[in-house]
């Protein structure tokens, strides 16, 4: 039995806490530091390991450096790309504030690629168009195909410069509330952190807590996501009465490496790459004649499945080709060096002379913890704020991505709303009193973790994790229907019951990854349940949610955000509500490209 788990918990009082050190968390921390707010940033990794660093293609902002562009066009593309489920006030904030955010990153030192006259260079990306859909526009600002890496590095560098206090390798295992959970009007008052190095618990109290923990792509078998992406922040909030919003909208990126899901950036198509079926034909002609390979991701992933089902995969198999050979060695090596390396290392394929086999891979959660425009977490369809709790980046749902996110808008989201989170939290910290100290605030989570690490026999986490990945892949993938989803809900609930008997082999205190992976599996199960339950309830097709039994979009019944609450005491989730979509400038229309 871990002795450190029995020791008295450390006590740390700050004004603000940031959970997660990807792009959103780091920018929030930077704003808080600028305002002089005592802040603790907790990350279960080292900050530079965060998954923002895996983003490749670029960050869109209507700078107009290489051709005419306007934020209104970016806003429209984001709304249409989201199949009109996007909240339009949020899309406006996103598109407007992308411009100063990118300029500020440049001023922080981000090494963007440059035009011949020294300005930030821009390239095409899926779904980003000129003049409200006329054709592709060059909007994506980029640093080769490692834009996310450079954003993560640059923001971390600035945090070091600003003296931000990091708690590296602290795993946040619980949120603290006073006055009841979020559904009872309670206030978030801090977190419990587990120090991975020695297994000790630490109670951190604060006036404002930001969830910036990213997504949960590890729920699926084929995924582009890091092992660390287990839905931590979503599950922790859900367990304290916060609903999750629009979880049925999960993006499958079209061009993953076959079998293992590692991403080959959309930048390959932005630079002019083709998608070819088994007959050597650019099949997107049939599905999106205007934008072709630069159609939004949900449409391309579906088109790939259609081709494969019709027997037009490569050699009749379950993949197609991404072909960049015609771009030439110079473009491939200078603008797409990393993904070229991925194809060589992980597939043994040489993109300069061979087409690359690809298939859709689980990639991004459009849904998550619901927030308002100030990143304050909300508790219900009326928008009641949960005091003290904030969310930004992939963990959050503002909603700027609606039913389908456009390429690069994940980075835009975490920059714009990470910055907003820091500013709003600083305001809140200045006018709020500190939460009261409560003895034994960590007791519940301590008992839970003790039970997990002392169970003498039971099922190993890996078995449940594998079963879950199969259930999500088969039942909650690109195409869905009533039978698949009902079965997925049932299976996830069975796995949740089995998880009550999960057994950890490592009983030590020092760097116990076995224990942490078991905790993460619990988060994955929660996020998966919310996803499947929401998908079963939405009887229409919209964006990334494609029901074969309800193939049409239904604006009468479902032009609304799904909210789903966790069942009491871990019982099946049954409480669902719908929140209206905010429409300002663009009335919903059929979505064709």
């Amino acid at each position, binding site marked *: 039995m871990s002795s450190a788990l029995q020791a008295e918990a450390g006590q740390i009082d700050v004004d603000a806490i940031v959970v997660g050190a990807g792009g959103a968390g780091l920018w929030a921390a930077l704003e808080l530091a600028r305002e002089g707010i005592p802040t603790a940033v907790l990350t279960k990794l080292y900050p530079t*390991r965060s998954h923002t660093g895996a983003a490749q293609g670029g960050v869109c902002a209507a700078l107009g450096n290489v051709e005419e562009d306007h934020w209104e066009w970016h806003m429209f593309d984001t709304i249409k790309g989201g199949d009109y489920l996007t909240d339009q006030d949020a899309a406006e904030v996103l598109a407007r504030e992308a411009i100063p955010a990118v300029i500020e990153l440049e001023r922080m030192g981000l090494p963007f690629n440059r035009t011949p006259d020294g300005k930030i260079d821009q390239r095409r990306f899926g779904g980003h168009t000129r003049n409200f859909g006329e054709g592709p526009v060059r909007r994506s600002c980029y640093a080769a195909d490692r834009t996310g890496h450079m954003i993560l590095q640059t923001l971390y560098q600035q945090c070091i410069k600003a003296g931000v206090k990091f708690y590296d390798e602290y795993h946040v295992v619980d949120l603290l509330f006073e006055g009841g959970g979020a559904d009872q009007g309670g206030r978030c008052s801090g977190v419990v952190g587990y120090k991975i190095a020695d297994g000790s618990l630490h109670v951190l109290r604060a006036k404002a807590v930001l969830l910036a923990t990213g997504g949960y792509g590890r729920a699926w078998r084929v995924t582009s996501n890091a092992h660390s992406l287990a839905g931590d922040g979503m599950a922790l909030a859900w367990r304290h009465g916060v609903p999750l919003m629009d979880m049925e909208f999960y993006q499958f990126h079209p061009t993953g490496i076959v079998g293992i899901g590692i991403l080959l950036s959309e930048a390959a198509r932005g630079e002019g790459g083709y998608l070819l079926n088994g007959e050597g034909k650019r099949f997107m002609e049939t599905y999106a004649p205007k934008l072709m390979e630069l159609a939004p991701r949900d449409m391309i992933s579906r088109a790939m499945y259609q081709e494969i089902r019709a027997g037009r995969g490569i050699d009749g198999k379950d993949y197609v080709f991404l072909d960049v050979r015609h771009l030439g060695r110079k473009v491939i090596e200078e603008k797409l060096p990393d993904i070229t390396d991925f194809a060589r290392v992980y597939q043994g394929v040489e993109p300069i002379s061979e087409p690359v086999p690809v298939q859709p891979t689980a990639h991004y959660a459009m849904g998550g913890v619901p927030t308002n425009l100030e990143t304050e977490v909300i508790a219900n369809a009326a928008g009641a704020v949960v005091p003290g709790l904030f969310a930004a980046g992939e963990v959050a749902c503002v909603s700027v991505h609606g039913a389908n996110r456009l390429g690069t808008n994940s980075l835009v989201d975490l920059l714009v709303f990470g910055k907003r989170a820091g500013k709003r939290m600083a305001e809140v910290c200045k006018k709020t009193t500190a939460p009261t100290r409560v003895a034994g605030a960590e007791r519940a989570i301590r008992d839970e973790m003790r039970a997990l690490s002392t169970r003498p026999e039971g099922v190993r986490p890996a078995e449940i994790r594998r079963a879950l990945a199969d259930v999500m892949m088969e039942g909650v993938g690109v195409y869905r229907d009533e039978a698949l989803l009902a079965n997925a809900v049932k299976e996830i609930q069975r796995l949740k019951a089995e998880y009550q008997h999960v057994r950890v*082999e490592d009983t*030590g205190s020092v760097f116990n990854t076995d224990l942490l992976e078991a905790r993460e599996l619990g988060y994955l199960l929660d996020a998966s349940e919310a996803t499947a339950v929401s998908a079963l309830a939405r009887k229409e097709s919209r964006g990334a949610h494609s029901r074969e039994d309800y193939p049409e979009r239904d604006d009468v019944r479902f032009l609304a955000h799904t909210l789903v609450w966790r069942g009491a005491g871990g019982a099946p989730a049954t409480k669902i509500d719908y929140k209206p979509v905010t429409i300002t400038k663009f009335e919903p229309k059929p979505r064709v490209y």
Partner: protein
Amino acid sequence: MDVELKIQRYDPERDSAPHWETYRVPVEPMDRVLDVLTRAKELHDGSITFRRSCAHGVCGSDALLINGRNRLACKVRVEQLGKSISVAPLPGLPVVKDLVVDMDEFFGKYRSVLPFLVADEPEGAGERLQSPEQREAYDDTTKCILCAACTSSCPSFWAQPEYVGPAAIVNAHRFIFDSRDQGADERLEILSNEDGVWRCRTTFNCVDACPRGINITKAILEVSTAIGSRG
């Protein structure tokens, strides 16, 4: 196919010294060492401990000594290694448990070279200009993922743990040669001290170890030259 996986194990709560354990693990041809480690943990012993996150060579978590060379476990395919695989923690860094090393000093050295843009000019309205050629001057060193494979492969670092090491110099280079930066003098001063660039003996171990293909020795030489030309 099965491989024989040898892992250097050490649990500070049980062991007085590191020792080797051997596991037989089934593999697929396209598996990477990280897949094999994960499978050994699942099949044989849940307490096998290592760091990992992105699993495709961009986060820098899983740099390890694999068959005698520092590499990322997620970037080495099993078929490149044969039927016998040995995995140990990065050399020269304190071992926390099994394959996990203490990275605090490594990151401390990174922080010591002012790894951030220093530019005092007043906040202007727009972006600064930088020509493609100016940007090219530091492109290579922007690729660093701070995995520590280079520093922990360096004989000078093994002999003198105070040596700031190749990774920190790479990150200093990234700013020294950025046309927008004004902190070069201060960084060159830091790197000209006795634990700075002069400890490099150009053995090229770092270049060989870098999973990002950075020409580290070239970067170190450029920094040395810049120190020399300061007079």
